[in-house]
């Protein structure tokens, strides 16, 4: 159909043409008027109590952090086990304490009573130099809160007990 025949067709059907123009106008108006009506409300503690526990229990204070932030699908779950690390309940302790880090074999993931030399702390902490260029964990997600990091550091500093 040529442009002139299209114009002729529209001229022969003015109602249809006006309707079409009105519809297109409506879409354009919609693009201007439309909006989403909600805010992002991400909780930095991801539903966990945001407190620094002085004497942490592994099962009550540490594992819930792993459950909510680390052992999710595609990450440190049993199926995916990124970097060979599974942090699901029942497996996480044995995968961490005294086990060499796959990404940094000269360091253990958790060295009891020595958080400064524990790879887990390096990977969740803010200092990029300590991670040797690796991305901070949790990957592409909000970092753990300062209180959550302190809880993990306290647990390691107290000998990383299996309690």
């Amino acid at each position, binding site marked *: 159909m040529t442009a002139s025949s299209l114009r002729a067709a529209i001229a022969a059907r003015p*109602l*249809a043409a006006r*309707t*079409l123009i*009105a*519809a297109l106008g*409506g*879409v354009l*108006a*919609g*693009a201007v*008027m*439309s*909006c*989403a*009506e*909600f*805010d*992002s*409300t*991400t909780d930095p503690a*991801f539903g966990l109590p945001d407190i620094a526990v002085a004497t942490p229990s592994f099962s009550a204070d540490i594992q819930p952090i792993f459950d909510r932030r680390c052992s999710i*699908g*595609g*990450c440190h*779950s049993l*199926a*995916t086990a*990124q970097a060979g690390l599974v942090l699901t309940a029942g497996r996480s302790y044995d995968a961490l304490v005294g086990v060499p880090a796959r990404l940094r074999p000269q360091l253990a993931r958790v060295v009891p009573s020595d958080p400064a030399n524990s790879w887990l702390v390096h990977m969740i902490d803010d200092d990029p130099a300590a991670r040797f260029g690796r*991305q*901070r964990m949790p*990957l*592409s*997600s*909000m970092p753990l809160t300062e209180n959550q990091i302190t809880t993990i550091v306290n647990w390691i500093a107290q000998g990383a007990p299996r309690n």
Partner: protein
Amino acid sequence: MRALVGGLLLVAGTAGMSAAQTRERQRHDFDDPEGRVMAFYAAALAVSAIGPAPSEHPWAVRAGIELSHIPRLTREQRTAGFDKPESSNLSPVLPRPRVAISAPHGVRIEASWLPPIRVFAARANLYSLAVSRPVATRGSLAFTPRVTVAAGRARGAITCNDALQRGTPSEQVYFGRICHGRESDDHFEPRQLSAELIVSRWGGGRLVPFATVGVRRDDTRFDIGVRRADGSRDTDHPVLEMRATRPFLAAGLARRGRVEAAAEVYYAPGSLVTVRVRTDLLVRRGRGVSRDR
């Protein structure tokens, strides 16, 4: 008509069964970050009347199309529970072909189907069936209740999108490690039952203002479709579910005629405000006695 309705029900049944999975399911409330985003898209894809049905003879048939604008979400709004934004701004518009049949006693049956064609970066297969009938007039106003069921699936690369490769270093690592360097094939599956009451001007005149109040029951799933390097679905990722019953409001103007056009502002509290337009053509006049609404 019987064949058309039967065919639609058959399609609805088979598509509903296809989502059977043994994956982890995460239930989210409307107020969760994930729930908010799912509710937003459920509202954006919801079917509404866009005006009252015209008075026509039984077995009159109208065919047309509806265009619904899908507002863009900001990076913050698309960051639902993760620091990584989801690539959900796949299409700014939802086109929806519709067919309406006037049955005896003022009943109107309306079906829509968006076939699985690519619209911008999304591919949707959405269908609906609605029944309405004017039940009362008061003064110059007509009251038309309408019930709609809708279901289907919209697909796109939402969780893992090529755009991540141009994002922050963390997003680039995410694309390589978690996404296996591939775009995802995410499925957004709305299932909806809605009831609405359309109040419109009754009587002469080609322009008919209308207002609608309704409530919609959503049973929405988001199937995270991360794909492994071999193309298979990575079942380590969960299926998110959100159930909610939400109100909605709409108001607009319809223009009567053989070619009818209507536009409405659609408001789903807590989710979106958008504009929808509809135009349709009377393709079969029908015969018999029409209700004068």
